[in-house]
């Protein structure tokens, strides 16, 4: 196995006096696509932001390409690691293409404008997010699902090795869930990228993820291969709700109750 792209060593993350994880050892290697599961408010976003180096951990460290993420220049981190946030924060109008092109920022020198190559990368990302033809639309006029796809296209335009995605499937219809999560899985498997994404849909995690990281609250975590970790028993404990696994077409589907 290759050296991990992103690694957490003895990581303890706290928010508002509550532990998200305690002494977490976790690594994300090229080719892996890991699902981050946990209930509402358990700290999935906080953990992703800590792994992205946006907030300091309470203890332990995060290594990106073998070096602490907090001591590397932010621009270099942004060339290697892309973060999809749960919600967009913008309120000023811009076109869809301009919004996606923001992803090229870390790759451009101070005085450079986006080149034709950068625009081509953004257009390709928009196309794979199903937004072809909407390039000149104003981003605030998009529907919720289109807006979500635009945010994903922006991360794809950033073209990082490590994807940290906060609920990428949120607001997407079934067609785009399959298309975009399939694309991410292929990016990992075929191009040696690494993906860690928080998901609320267990069946999406079962279908697209090679491994699972569970946050139980109170700092307790569990990680491992999808087959071993994603069990009805663990999920019942995770969501404090009975979950059953049903065999289906050689795999399993999970249902509540």
């Amino acid at each position, binding site marked *: 196995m290759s050296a991990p792209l992103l690694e957490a060593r003895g990581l303890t993350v706290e928010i508002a006096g509550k532990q998200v994880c305690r002494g977490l050892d976790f690594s994300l290697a090229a080719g892996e696509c890991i699902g981050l599961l946990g209930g509402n408010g358990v700290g999935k976003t906080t953990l992703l*932001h800590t792994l*992205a180096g*946006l907030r300091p951990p309470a203890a332990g460290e995060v290594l990106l390409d073998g070096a602490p993420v907090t001591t590397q*220049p*932010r*621009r*270099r*981190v*942004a*060339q290697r690691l*892309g*973060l999809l*946030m749960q919600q*967009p*924060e*913008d*309120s*000023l*109008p*811009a*076109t869809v293409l*301009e*919004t996606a092109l*923001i*992803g090229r*920022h*870390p790759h*451009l020198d*101070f*005085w450079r*404008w986006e080149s*034709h190559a950068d*625009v081509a990368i953004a257009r390709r990302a928009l196309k794979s997010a199903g937004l072809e033809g909407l390039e*000149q*639309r*104003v981003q*605030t*006029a998009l529907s919720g699902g289109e807006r979500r796809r635009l945010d994903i296209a922006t991360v794809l335009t*950033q073209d990082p090795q490590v994807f940290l995605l906060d609920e990428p499937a949120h607001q997407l219809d079934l067609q785009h869930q399959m298309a975009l999560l399939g694309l991410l899985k292929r990016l990992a498997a075929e191009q040696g990228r690494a993906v860690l994404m928080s998901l609320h849909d267990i069946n999406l995690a079962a279908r697209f993820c090679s491994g699972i990281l569970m946050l139980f609250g109170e700092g307790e975590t569990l990680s491992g291969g999808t087959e071993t970790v994603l069990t009805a028993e663990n999920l019942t404990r995770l969501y404090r709700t009975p979950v059953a696994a049903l065999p289906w077409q050689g795999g399993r589907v999970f249902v509540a109750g």
Partner: protein
Amino acid sequence: MKKLPILLAWLPALIALTLTAFAVSLAVGSTPLSLHTLWDVLTGGGDPLSRTVVMELRLPRSLNAFAVGGLLALAGTLMQVLLRNPLADPYILGVSGGAAVGALGAFLLGLAGLWVNGGAFVGALLSTLLVFALAHGRGGWTPTRLLLTGIAVAAGWGAAISLMLVLGSDASLHSMIFWLMGDFSYQPGGSLALVMLVLGLAACWPFARQLNVLARGETLAEALGIAVRPLSVAIYISASLFTAVAVTEAGAIGFVGLVVPHMFRMLAGGDHRRLLPGAVLLGGCLLMLADTLARTVAAPRQLPVGVVTAALGVPLFLYLLNRARGPL
């Protein structure tokens, strides 16, 4: 690629508008000049009377009006990015209120001329520092906290202004009200605003791509490798400084700083590499033309330029708003 045509279309149009606006504001007035005479004067010829009128009276005033308009538009653009709020203008964080209290204080003490400008400048800077220190608070520095602090401080200044107007003598009241509405007739004769505008635009423009990213949100900007905190502080300080200079030169002229950035966005998009210089030219032209009207429409009476700015800008802006496709 759509970038090049837009770039080619807006820049010559705005430069042509700027030159026309300068020609109009230099030619029109109590001594009207033909374009031919104006050309003679500007190329070093012309009769002595025309020379005096253009070079000593109209040109300094037009340049000053242009610079103040440009500074307000620049400050407004920066504030809208900083607060990520399309309703932000240069005065939203109380800079103009602080300046007004300083200027009116000088009027109350019976001072005039440069004392008023000095009072305005000191008031503006004090207000900037006050809001900055208070907004820092215990929980950090968010746009919402900054905005609410600024609005609260501005409300305080508003009360102080009302009090000063009540306390002022009848003699000083007229100058106070003119100052509050914005006015270029106290000609300080300096080129502070113009120097500030040139330096300010030159300093801000290289960071325009970073502004584009920051406009999309603080966390995203951080994740894309921007040092958000230093950039925000720099935006806040420079926007406040530009506003302080503008207010010092011309009083609190409303509307330009809020509306000009939106006008340009509707015409040529929101990329700050275009928006910063574009808003400067547009704001400068608007205020210069407004000032030309203010000193000629009811001559020999001079109207407050703030009134004319609104009279020109409100219909123009509403027309553009009505015409604009899609939501803002």
